[in-house]
Structures are given as C-alpha cells and as structure tokens.
C-alpha cells in the first residue's frame, strides 16, 4: 500500500516535472527567431532529473534509517517499569504485538492498557512519519523542479547536462563488472585468510590427507589439498583424452571435408551438447554411464566402480566436445587459404595438407583452445559431485572413486553455516585456489590465441 502510494507520487512528480520543462521550452520559441540550444525533450529531462534526484535521495534516506527510528520510538512507548522486566525475546514479542495493534489486525488474548496506548501512538507515529517523509520528498522535488525551470533559457545547454548524466550512468554500469571481480577477490581472500588463521597454509597446500572434522569442537581435522588436486587433474586428463580427439577430428571433418548441407545440420546438433545443463550430464553419468562401465569392467575382469574418476572424466569429456570443436574450427578458419593452396599445388592430398600444413600452422591457437577447455573442466562442478564418488583419498587408479576441489567446496559449504570454523571457511581457500588456477590458464590461453591471431592478420 505505502509502496504503491510512493510509486504513484514519484510517477506524478516525474510526469509534472518533464511536462513543465517541456512546455517552458516550447514557450521559448517565439516569432523573433531566437535559436534554442536544446530540443524540448531535453529541457523536460533536465527538469525531471532535477526534480527526481532530491526526492529519491530523501526517500532512500528514510528507507535506510526509518526502520531503526521506528524501532526506537516503539521501545520508548513501552512504560519504563515494564521495559526493565522484559528480556530480549520478551521485548521482541511486545514489539510484534504493538505492531499488530497499530496495523489494526489486532492480537489474540488480553490487551494490556499500555499495549493499546503504545499501539495507538505507533499508528499515529507511522502515519505522521510516512506523510512527513512523502511531503518532504515532494517539497524537495518541487524545489528542484522550480530551480531547473528558472534556469531554462534559450541558451541553456540542457542536452549536454542530460548527456553527462547518461554518461555517468553508463560508466556506473560498466563499473559493475570491476566490482564483481573486486568482490570475488575480496571475499575469497578475506575468508581464505581467516581459514589460514586456523590451519597452517603449508598443511593445506602440501597436506596429503583430507579429513575435515565436521562435528565441530577444537579438533578441526586435516585439510590437505593434494588428494583433491590429484582427483581434479585425473578427471581433467580423462576428459581431455575424450574431448580432444573427438572434438578436433569433428572440427577438421566439418570445416574441411563436409558438404555445406551436412555441416549446417551437424554443427548445431553437436552444439546442443554445449547448451545442456551440467546437472543433466551428472545424472546421465550417475545412472547410465557409471553402471555401464561397472558391468563392462566386470565382463573383462576389471574392478571399476560405478562412480569413479573414469565415469566423471568420460562424461565431462563429452560435455566439452563442442567447446573444443567450435574453438578449433574457429582457429583453423583463421589460417590463410594461400598456405593450403600451396600444399595442394605441390600435389599433397587433402589429409596431408591438413596434417602437415594446416595443423602445424594452427597449433598455437589450438593449444590455447585446449587450455581454455582444461580450465573449464577444472571448474566443472555438478558432474563430479554426482559421478566422481566423493572419496578424497590420494591414489592413482582412475577406476576408483575420487574427489575434486569443486566437490569439496559444495560439501563444506552447505549454505547455512556462519563461517566461523575452518570446516566452512576451507571452501573459500579451495575457491581461491580454483580461481587462481583457472585465471592463470585463461590469461595464458587468451594470450596465446591473441598472439596467434595477430600472426596471420
């Protein structure tokens, strides 16, 4: 209700101020040929900005501080002798009752006289402060409007002022991107630093045992990164073993051999894989690929767990096929045609041209693409959460369950912790590690790709 009134008042203010500026501007155009600098809509916007900004500032100030002021007023309405007898929970209960009385909803049970009095007082206080703030906002807006209106002359550069405001807004929006990075770095670093006050960084980065004690108490358990890192790298390696040959060969076939019509159908179909949510791949790995691998292992006399590094790695490889394929396709298209034509002119077959001319020329770019794919595989979460088996033990067999950095972040940060012990803070230390590793890979890969592009431009 109140929000609707405020919105309504603001819209009316906006309309009136814009209209005022606009009509004053129209009035400037007289028969004696005065040349007005800005068009009427800029004068309108100019007035609207001058009217809205003060009104919004006052409303925002009230939204920010109003709750505290109302709370203090409510407490001051409770008689002193009752106030001292209330503990924190009792005080909150009393305030809720007074609010319920003030809103007219009423309360169940006996109403003490002081509660009724406080409720009535709060109702009038609420009304007065709401009306007061709104009137103040309207007056401030009106003052801004009047000032802006008085400044409107033929020579006023209203357009320049309005465009300056627009520019500042645009700059603020692009600052959001910077703020995101700052927020990521700040939150990861501060929380990870708090983690390192509990656990020695050396024990974290070089420890070989991952066994957090989630029960609490002073025995925190051990937080060795190496088992997680080993699991992450093993899964990533398996994923790349699947994705690189398939992705690269399909990119070569689609860009060099396939007829246009086939390419037009097959390329989007492969790219469907890139659009499927990772949780779906995780489910696929868990209920289909894992059991299949286990049965296959049994058939050839090999012990393969249903949830293992192999399961997660293969499915993650499938997931990044389109990533590798479209990036390599892109890179190979950048190699100049003349190189290929030269090879054909010397009598090379198509595959010889591709293997001996095209691929070597495109190699740096393709390596960059692979690094981007590796960085994506390292940061992938849902597939490994579901299909890697969550066994943070240092071992070399890909047929056994493993755990990764991302899995441990999800396990340690359940969302309802208050970040006081190393059990949850370790999530940020792991996140920081992940962020730094992927950032380095990305920067390096983008650098290689850019160098490669410049080489042929």
């Amino acid at each position, binding site marked *: 209700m109140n929000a609707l009134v405020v919105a309504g008042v603001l819209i009316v203010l906006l309309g009136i101020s814009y209209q005022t500026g606009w009509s004053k501007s129209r009035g400037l155009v007289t028969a004696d040929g005065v040349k007005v600098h800005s068009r009427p809509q800029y004068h309108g916007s100019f007035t609207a900005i001058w009217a809205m900004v003060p009104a919004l500032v006052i409303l925002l100030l009230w939204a920010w501080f109003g709750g505290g002021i109302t709370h203090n007023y409510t407490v001051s309405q409770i008689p002193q002798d009752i106030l001292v007898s209330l503990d924190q929970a009792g005080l909150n209960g009393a305030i809720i009752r007074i609010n319920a009385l003030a809103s007219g909803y009423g309360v169940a049970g006996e109403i003490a006289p002081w509660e009724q009095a406080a409720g009535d007082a709060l109702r009038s206080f609420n009304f007065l402060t709401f009306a007061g703030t709104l009137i103040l906002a309207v007056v401030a807006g009106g003052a801004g409007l009047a000032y802006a209106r008085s400044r409107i002359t033929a020579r006023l550069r209203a357009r320049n002022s309005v465009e300056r405001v627009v520019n500042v807004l645009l700059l603020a929006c692009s600052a959001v991107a910077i703020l995101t990075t700052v927020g990521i770095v700040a939150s990861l670093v501060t929380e990870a630093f708090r983690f390192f006050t509990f656990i020695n960084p050396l024990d974290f980065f070089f420890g070989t045992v991952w066994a957090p004690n989630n029960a609490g108490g002073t025995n925190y358990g051990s937080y060795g990164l190496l088992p997680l890192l080993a699991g992450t790298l093993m899964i990533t390696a398996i994923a790349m073993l699947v994705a690189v040959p398939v992705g690269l060969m399909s990119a070569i076939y689609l860009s060099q051999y396939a007829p246009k019509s086939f390419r037009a159908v097959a390329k989007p179909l492969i790219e469907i894989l890139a659009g499927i949510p990772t949780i779906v791949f995780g489910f696929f790995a868990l209920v289909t690929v894992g059991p299949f691998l286990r049965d296959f292992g049994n058939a050839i006399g090999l012990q393969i767990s249903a949830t293992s590094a192999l399961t997660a790695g293969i499915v993650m490889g499938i997931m990044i096929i389109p990533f590798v394929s479209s990036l390599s396709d892109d890179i190979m298209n950048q190699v100049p045609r003349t190189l290929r034509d030269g090879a054909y002119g010397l009598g090379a077959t198509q595959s010889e041209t591709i293997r001996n001319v095209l691929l070597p020329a495109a190699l740096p770019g393709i390596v960059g693409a692979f690094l981007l794919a590796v960085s994506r595989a390292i940061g992938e979460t849902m597939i490994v959460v579901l299909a890697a088996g969550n066994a943070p033990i240092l071992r070399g067999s890909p047929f056994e369950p493993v755990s990764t950095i991302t899995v441990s972040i999800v396990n340690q940060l359940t969302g309802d912790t208050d970040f006081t012990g190393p059990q949850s803070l370790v999530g940020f230390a792991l996140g920081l590690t992940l*962020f730094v590793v992927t950032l380095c890979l990305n920067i390096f890969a983008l650098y290689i790709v850019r160098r490669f592009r410049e080489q042929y431009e």
Partner: protein
Amino acid sequence: MATDIQTSPEKASNDRTRIIRDGLRRRHTSEQIFRGLGIAAIAIALGFVALLFVDVFRKGVPAFVQSNLHLSVTFDAEVIDVGPAPARADFPSDAEYTAASLKWQRDLALLNWNTIVEASLRKAAPEGFEIDSRQIQSIPETNARHQIREMFVRDPSLLGQTVEVDVLASANAANWIKGNIDRSLGDAQQQLSAPARQLIDTFVENGTISNGFAWTIFTNVDSRAAPASAGLLGAFVGTLWMMLIVVLLAVPIGVAAAIYLEEFAPKSRLTDLIEVNINNLAAVPSIVFGLLGAAVFINWFHLPISAPLVGGLVLTLMTLPTIIIATRGALMGVSPALRQAALGMGASKTQMVFHHVLPTTFPSILTATILGVAHALGETAPLLLIGMKAFVASVPATPLDQAAALPVQIYLWQGNENRNFFEPRTAAAIMVLLAVMILLNGAAIYLRSRLEKRA
C-alpha cells in the same frame, strides 16, 4: 646387349610408375582413413547427443503416469467430533478469529483421519479380504489423510456425507504397478507386504486404481513424506523469479556497460583493465560466483538464505559478461556509414548511439539475452552454495521467500533414497528443464532470423 639397353629404361620407368602407384595407393588409403576418423568423431559426438536424449526420455516418460485411487470417503461424525468451524462474526478482532480457527484446525489435525481412509479402502476391497491396518495404509500416499482433512476444512458441511475422492497411490504402490521393482523378488526384498501387493492387483483389475497423466508434477510442490505427490511447481516458480531478476538487472546493466565500453570509453589503462576483466569473468567457474554470493550477499549483507533474490543476483553477475560481450560485438558490427550519417546531420554522440546505432543491434541483444537466460536457467552449483540445497515445500510468493529451483530440484531428487520411484521422476524433471531450454533456444533462433530479415 641391345635388348638390354632397350628394356632397361622401360623397366626403370615401369618401376617408377609402380613405386608412384604404390605410393599413391598408400597415400589414398591414409586419406580414406583420415576421413573415416573424421566421420567417426562426428558419429561419436552425435551418438552421445542421441544417447543422452533417448536415455533421459526412456527413463522419464513413465514418471508422467500416476496411479490414482478412486475412493468413496465417508466423513464419519463419530470420528470427526470437533465443534463447528468458528465464524468471523463471533470474534471482536481478526487476530482472535485467526487464533480460534487455527485452534479448530489443530483439533481437526489431531483426529485420526487414517481410520477414515482405511474405512474407504476396506469398502473398495473384496468382501472378507484379510489385511491388517498397517498394510492397507501403505497403499494410498501418506498425504491422502491431509487431502481429505483439507476438503473438510474447506467445507465443514461434509460432515456425515459420503463423497467420491481421488487420492494418489503411494510411491511403493506405483513402483509395483509400473513394474519399477522386480515382481519376482521375495517378500523380504519387497517394500510392500504380500496382502498389500495382492490387494493392489485386485484394485487395478476392478478399476479402483487407474493410471492417468501426472498433472501433479506440474501442480504440486516438493514433498518428502508423500513422494508420489512431489511436484515441480515450487521449483518452477523459484526459477521464474530468478530469471525475472536476471532479465531485469543483467540486460540494462549489460547493455549500458557495453555501450560505454564500445562507444564512449576513452582508450586508457582503466578501460583496458575493464576489458581484460570482463573476458576473464566470462571464464570464471560458476561455483566461484556461488562463493561470492555466500560471502557477500549472505554473510555481509545478511540477505535471506536460499531466496530467489540472492540466486537471481548471483546468476545476474554470471550472465553479465555474456551479455556485455555479445552487445559489444553487435555494436562493433554496425556500419560506420550509419554513424557518420547521423553525426553529419548534427546528432550528438549520445543521440547517434541511442537513436541510430542501438536500435539496429536489437536482434543480437535479444538473442544474447535469451541464450544468457537459458544458460543461467540450468546453472546448479552456485545455487547450492547460497543455501538452495534446503528442502522447500512451498511456492515462493516473493523473491525473498525460501525457494528451490529446477536444476536444484533435480539435484535433490536424484539423491532421494527411494531410487525406484525418484529416478524416473528426476528424469521427468530433466525433461521439463530441457523442454524449457529448447523452447528458449528455439525462440532465440526464430527471433533472430525474423528480426534480421526485417532489418
């Protein structure tokens, strides 16, 4: 001697031809092999796409069938022995009325509604069928008694009457009917007792149990106590709230940032930094955004845990780089002639950008937005870190309420202990998610081709 001289060049040339032929044959074979490898790679990739879809479909389709029990329920006045429902007119204030009707409902909830359910089941069973109370109670879903109680709360005049009611069969009963559990297993491994299984088969034969399309998947919220009634509505609305926030925030901010960087930003260290920064943000793992949300939005700003607002904000930050990069690409592609014409007619730079350049990029921005939203829709990991793992059995009315999201619901269901029942249901939820994504992607492709034709 003379013949030697004559034959030897001939022989040499024959040899050379043979060597070349052999070489060519070898080279052509390797050409064929290479080409075959390419085709195999494509076949593997496409095979995986097909396998994934077929697999999810095969598993998910049965979950869209639910088993309904048709019962005639008698609201027995001897069991329901609470007073009449309180009326508003008897109480001085809303609060007292609410308290009284809550008390009335609590009294109702304390009654043994199971006896009413059981009586109606026994009425449907063949005459003299021997089955004990606990066994017969395992046939309907546990929420049947709540469903019947709520019918009575809505309409207290039902007291003493008999009405036809459809309730869901329990998850175990549904497993038995659909054959999700091996029927030949012994009693020890079955979830249901032998008489209960026999009664279910009788019910199926005499039409008391019939199968129908599982609308409950779309109309119900998640449920743990009554798995057969678990639905996606709460998760769907939660996702809808988040996508609304993403569209409302990411599109204006992303487009504005792109305009600034592409059109207005002076070439300086700072803008270079922003540029590198945006490219890197696009490649930051999504789980790191979840950590950001947990630390900044929940721990520092004290926003509510597992609310769509926080999820929406996190997904907005994740989607921003995509939209910025796509919009910049579109702005870069606008012909310089258009810009020069606008400037030549005396437009200011801002006017040139907003009146002439930006409108032509509309199709690209729209498709980038849809694709960005489709991507954000399927994202799971960051949501887990801001507390959306929690079990929520309600439809969020505002973005500040606790909520689930579609991908998180999939994550929660795949972890449910009743695998026989929840594996198909998870696959069904995935089908819904994929359908939404395909719809969005299809819309993007359609709109792009249409708008570009017009432009």
